[in-house]
């Protein structure tokens, strides 16, 4: 099977692979990370709050999501989101949602559970004295969170948050189950069409490897810099 390798197929399909496939992959990764961190942080605050019930609700959600395979959640949301949309807007029939939006909602809500646990650990790592100092200056809850606690928690957790993002970057390839074309999907399509499985899958592997490795390397450098600042 290695006898007549044709590397040209890669060159020929580069624009499609990157402008269609990789663009989708990166957009999904970045948007789901941003949304996931925001929702995850709110979940973390809910988990740490002493408002009756709130902590339990958030905790149940997080544990539920974290005990489920991502593929299952993707399927689920794909079939469920139209009905949720219908319920929210009160429309008479299920709202048609594009595959991208469905994938984005899924990954955001799925990652939120993981970001929640990271941010919770980050918030708990801030000494109680910092909270008290903010309170003693008269800051209400949200001011002390937004100005004092969360910035420090976020900075301390940045390497772990980014590592989670790298995992997400790889996990986005699972969108193939709802027939969305991400980078791997694009490579796969060409591979099938031109019968160039070896070339395309090898190339895809190399691309994922290089990007993930470069990202992890940057995270490690960042980690060292944060350690110095602290």
């Amino acid at each position: 099977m290695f006898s007549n390798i044709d590397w040209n197929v890669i060159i020929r399909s580069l624009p499609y692979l990157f402008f269609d496939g990789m663009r989708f992959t990166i957009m999904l990764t970045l948007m789901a990370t941003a949304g996931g961190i925001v929702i995850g942080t709110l979940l973390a605050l809910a988990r740490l709050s002493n408002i009756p019930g709130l902590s339990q609700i958030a905790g149940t959600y997080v544990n539920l999501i974290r005990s489920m395979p991502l593929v299952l959640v993707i399927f689920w949301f794909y079939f469920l989101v139209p009905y949720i949309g219908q319920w929210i807007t009160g429309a008479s029939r299920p709202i048609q949602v594009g595959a991208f939006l469905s994938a984005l909602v899924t990954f955001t809500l799925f990652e939120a559970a993981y970001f929640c646990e990271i941010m919770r650990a980050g918030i708990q790592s801030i000494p109680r004295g910092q909270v008290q100092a903010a309170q003693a200056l008269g800051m209400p809850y949200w001011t002390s969170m937004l100005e004092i606690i969360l910035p420090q928690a976020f900075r301390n957790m940045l390497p772990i948050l980014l590592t989670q993002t790298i995992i997400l970057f790889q996990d986005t390839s699972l969108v193939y189950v709802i027939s969305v074309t991400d980078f791997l999907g694009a490579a796969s399509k060409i591979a099938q069409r031109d019968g160039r499985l070896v070339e395309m899958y090898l190339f895809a592997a190399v691309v994922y490897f290089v990007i993930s490795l470069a990202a992890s390397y940057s995270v490690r450098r960042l980690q060292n810099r944060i350690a110095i600042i602290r």
Partner: protein
Amino acid sequence: MITISKVSKWYGKIQVLKNCSAEVAKGEVVVVCGPSGSGKSTLIKCVNALEPFQEGTITVEGISVGDPKTNLPKLRARIGMVFQHFELFPHLSVIRNLTLSQIKVLGRDPKAAAEKATKLLERVGLGAHAQKYPGQLSGGQQQRVAIARALAMDPIAMLFDEPTSALDPEMINEVLDVMVTLAKEGMTMIVVTHEMEFARKVANRVVFMDKGEIVEDAPTADFFGKPRSERAQQFLSKILQH
């Protein structure tokens, strides 16, 4: 101005404050001392509601601290607090540490807040360090910034919780000097400290605590002259030996 009346507090089943009462008049400086674990920090943190208490009342200028209807952020904004471990905000520059709550809590104009902050930094001898981060300062400098930060809110009273006990010996005086000046200017202060020289110099009264109780509350001269309680005498003789 500050009235503590029959305050008791429990952590679970353990009682850490037992029926504590004390009064601090405007312009008074009260030093609180006592063995470690006697409840000194807990008591002064009850004054600005950083710690809740189960029994008794505390009022600050007539406002009840324990009342659920009291606007606590508003009350706390009027009482300055200085902590043992400084608790400056490490992710903010020194000047930002001083302006943040002026702007966010008091609603001051950022320019006015910065002017006030600069003046206060100069007053504690740190005018040149405004743009630095807390981590770049020595312990004594950090604590002086913390005092300036509290003063930036124009507090009606200041609480100090062992402000010098985390400092290297050579830095203690630079912080005490600032506090002495403040006391002489008439600031109402409750100071938890074992710096007996400081107490002698500026305190109107000394409160001695042991095992959650206020054992003695006496004018400074009386306290150092002849403490009435056995426990205070023992404590004093131990601490003055150093």
